[in-house]
């Protein structure tokens, strides 16, 4: 019998293959839990992948199907993550996260003199390279690499 570290959900969203330890950051970026929401959110860290290929985090959000654009926001933190939309215990849809061309409000610019740090404006970056990941601040043109954003 299969042992569940996180129990299966009836309806909702499962985010799998998150790099170990990054699940809290994933929830933060997705704005979960939403204020006032009573949806159950379960989170497992450092789960063995089962193929001897190391560990991963898993997040399960009950009774909420996240939109694709919302999910793509986590591409910076969890580039290899997969998304399962669950309906009545079955996987209704499955996809891997796509890195959008423009990333808004997910990471802060790391240039201490960037205007976005002192003004009421969301950060905005353009993806200039996908592999290796390089993004550039739309305002000050400062460049961030994968290590700096994850």
């Amino acid at each position: 019998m299969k042992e569940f570290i996180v129990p299966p959900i009836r309806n909702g969203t499962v985010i799998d293959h998150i790099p170990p330890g990054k699940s809290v950051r994933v929830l933060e970026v997705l704005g979960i839990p939403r204020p006032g929401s009573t949806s159950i959110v379960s989170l497992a860290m450092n789960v063995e992948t089962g193929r001897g290929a190391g560990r991963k985090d898993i997040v399960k959000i009950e009774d909420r199907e996240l939109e694709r654009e919302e999910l793509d926001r986590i591409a910076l933190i969890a580039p290899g993550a997969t998304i399962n939309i669950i309906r009545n215990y079955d996987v209704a849809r499955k996809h891997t996260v796509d890195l959008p061309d423009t990333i808004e409000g997910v990471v802060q610019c790391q240039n201490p003199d960037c205007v976005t740090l002192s003004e009421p404006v969301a950060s905005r970056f353009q993806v200039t390279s996908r592999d290796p990941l390089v993004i550039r601040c739309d305002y000050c043109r400062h460049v961030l690499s994968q290590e700096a954003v994850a």
Partner: protein
Amino acid sequence: MTLLDRDVIAVSDLSDDEIQALLRLAREFAGPEGRPTPRNELADRIVACLFFEPSTRTRLSFESAAHRLGARVIGFSSPAATSFAKGETLSDTIRTVSHYADLIVLRHPKDGSARLAAELSEVPVVNAGDGSHSHPTQSLVDFFTIGDERGTTTNNNVVLLGDLRFGRTTHSLATLLSRFGNKVTCVSPPGLEMPEGVIEECARHGRRPDQTNDLVGALADADVLYVTRIQKERFADPAEYLKYAGSYRIDDDILRHAEADLTILHPLPRVGEIDHAVDRRPGAAWFRQARNGVPVRMALLTSILKETPQILTEATR
């Protein structure tokens, strides 16, 4: 393309054609004596000069350019006397002032502030320096001066000397020079080299700039020497600063290694990088460079605010 109603945040916003048109218009405005005569192209317009940090030369040349075109100027020269000092954000200031003027000239200490202002403003924004990011009109003035002094904006050998790491004007100038087919040689003290990103940018547009710390060697076949200030505050050890500052001092002695007609530029203020005796050389162009700040900014303001500048149609007829 036209510059009408456009923001000018960085030199990279401008196409080669637009830059050439701007330089032509600036040349017309400058006149044979380099001294613009009063005009009325912008007689019905208001230009706001918002200077969140003092920069006397830049502000005065923008204001002079606006006045020469008949525009009225509003604004401030330091944030101390404004609501900004009371904690108002740049965003709120821009949203407000964009209803008071037809164009905003912005100087602000934060990197990227001009881009943000352009997104929030109802009227065009011209960047007059945003932190260490960009100062496009200074680069245009420098480029115009090189063209004026050498008779061409292409095929010049230009040596950039000094703090090329933090000196933002040298970054966009190097790119501009490469775009127009000039050879750029970068000479700087160790630790203050031109950033690799800028070198790559130049290489994408034209020749890859040479980098050296052999000033004498670089001067041998130079047409133009562009000197920048080495800022004391960049050095932890004052002795280190003195060592570098001394090694890059331009005087008649070192200029023996250069052609007699070498054009020498400096964005000013200079603090000892150029010996005052050098002022007597015919190629000492820094005051003409400062003077050119007015016609170049006149050209920019007119192109943004006026459909077809009358002067250009006259010149091309």
